[in-house]
């Protein structure tokens, strides 16, 4: 090739790169600044590599089967189900913030509802993905709808999860349609507007669905009368864990939304949501957490003194004679992950101090995740019969990779959505230099 041909080729590549950059900047919302396209693509590639690792492990599980995991006769539910319950609880910020915004009419929350919806969408799509891996035979996933076992709380969970994911998709679509270029198409512009105006109906349906599936996930543990560590009395067919799970998702979910918002602010180096909005949601979350933790302490006290002894167990039986589960886990869940963040968030001083507030968010996320861990994995570990021993379990790398997969997917979706969609309505106002 002669020199002229090479120059022409380089010029062509350069024009192509310029064209890509022009297209990229045309998609970025008005009045805000984003990092360079190169930097964005490098970050996306790094997270994408982690995602591919998870996809590889997922394909191993699908093609070779569940022998790729360390699940066994003791652990029919394992790391995936903990991850599933944890992301569903953490994604509870979407339904509860939606409920506050559209049903209770807390209008200030319009400045964070988009992000709550995005996080909820990520959490619920992740939960469905984890279930698709966990069932081992995804091609038969539709059996749960077609041949539904109407006596199982998990059937109700599957129904409500799927329907609520539809609600979250419906709530996320208007955000996509508000992209600068898509919004120029009249039909999409009107569709976004009309979906916003009917959102209260979808949000109410979402709150209804969430109440039941969050509750039923707790109910599954609470009805295990053969496992005294999990078993609880209750109201009619619903054990107390049913109500505690719904309550905790509504209380702790917004803390996860606020924590991810803070992380996004730290990475982008910008303030994205005004303090009054953060403080309002933190205050509501704090009071929900306070009432929840009081109920949880009463439930634990009654279980330790009445329910478990009636089945032949003392409290300390559940926290001794093993190498991992000590009384520390109960303290971590209830005191550090419940009482402390609740006490910080219900006080004016605690909410107004960024360090205290962010610490409370992190502790709350740890608290609810530990609660789900205990209700899924410790339940399986505790010996029941006199000849039983503690059954401890360690996940295989395939389980770990497929559990990290949704995290990588979530980070990528947040990166793309933050770059191209007007997620934070207050961003331009808070960052006038942009």
């Amino acid at each position: 090739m002669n020199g002229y041909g090479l120059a022409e080729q380089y010029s062509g590549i350069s024009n192509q790169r310029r064209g890509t950059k022009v297209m990229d900047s045309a998609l970025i919302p008005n009045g805000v600044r984003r990092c360079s396209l190169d930097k964005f693509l490098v970050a996306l590639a790094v997270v994408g590599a982690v995602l591919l690792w998870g996809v590889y492990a997922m394909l191993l599980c699908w093609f070779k089967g569940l022998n790729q995991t360390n699940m066994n006769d003791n652990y029919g539910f394992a790391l995936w189900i903990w991850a599933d319950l944890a992301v569903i609880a953490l994604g509870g910020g979407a339904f509860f913030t939606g409920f506050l915004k559209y049903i209770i009419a807390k209008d200030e929350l319009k400045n964070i509802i988009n992000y709550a919806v995005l996080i909820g969408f990520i959490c619920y799509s992740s939960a469905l993905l984890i279930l698709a891996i966990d069932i081992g035979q995804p091609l038969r996933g539709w059996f749960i709808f077609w041949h539904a076992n109407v006596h199982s709380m998990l059937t109700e969970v599957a129904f409500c999860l799927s329907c609520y994911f539809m609600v979250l998709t419906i709530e996320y679509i208007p955000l996509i349609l508000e992209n600068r270029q898509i919004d120029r198409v009249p039909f999409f512009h009107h569709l976004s507007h009309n979906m916003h105006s009917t959102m209260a109906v979808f949000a109410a349906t979402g709150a209804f669905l969430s109440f039941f599936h969050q509750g039923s996930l707790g109910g599954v543990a609470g009805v295990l009368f053969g496992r005294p560590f999990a078993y609880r009395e209750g109201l009619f067919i619903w054990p107390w864990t049913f109500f505690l799970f719904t309550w905790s998702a509504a209380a702790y979910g917004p803390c996860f939304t606020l924590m991810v918002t803070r992380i996004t602010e730290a990475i982008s180096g910008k303030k994205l949501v005004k303090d009054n909005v953060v403080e309002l949601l933190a205050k509501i979350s704090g009071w929900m957490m306070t009432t929840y933790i009081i109920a949880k302490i009463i439930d634990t006290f009654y279980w330790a003194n009445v329910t478990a002894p009636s089945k032949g167990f003392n409290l300390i039986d559940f926290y001794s004679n093993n190498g991992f589960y000590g009384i520390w886990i109960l303290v971590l869940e209830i005191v550090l992950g419940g009482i402390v963040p609740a006490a910080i968030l219900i006080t004016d001083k605690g909410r107004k101090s960024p360090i205290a507030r962010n610490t409370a968010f992190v502790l709350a996320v740890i608290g609810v995740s530990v609660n789900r861990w205990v209700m899924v994995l410790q339940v399986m570990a505790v010996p029941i019969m006199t000849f039983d021993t503690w059954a401890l379990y360690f996940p295989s790398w395939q389980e770990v990779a497929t559990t990290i997969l949704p995290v990588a997917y979530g980070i990528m979706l947040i990166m793309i959505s933050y770059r191209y969609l007007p997620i934070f309505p207050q961003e331009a106002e808070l960052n006038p230099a942009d």
Partner: protein
Amino acid sequence: MFPFNFEWIWDMSHVVFMGGLWYALTILGIGMTYCVVKSTIDAAKDDGGHH
């Protein structure tokens, strides 16, 4: 899932479970249909207005 499935029984469990599912799906379906139809009409009106 449907009364014509072989395992279907007309009992309280089926009515509550499947009724709840179809109730939610109906609300979502009607809501989205309304949005799409109204947006089509609105967009057509806009288009008419421009000319």
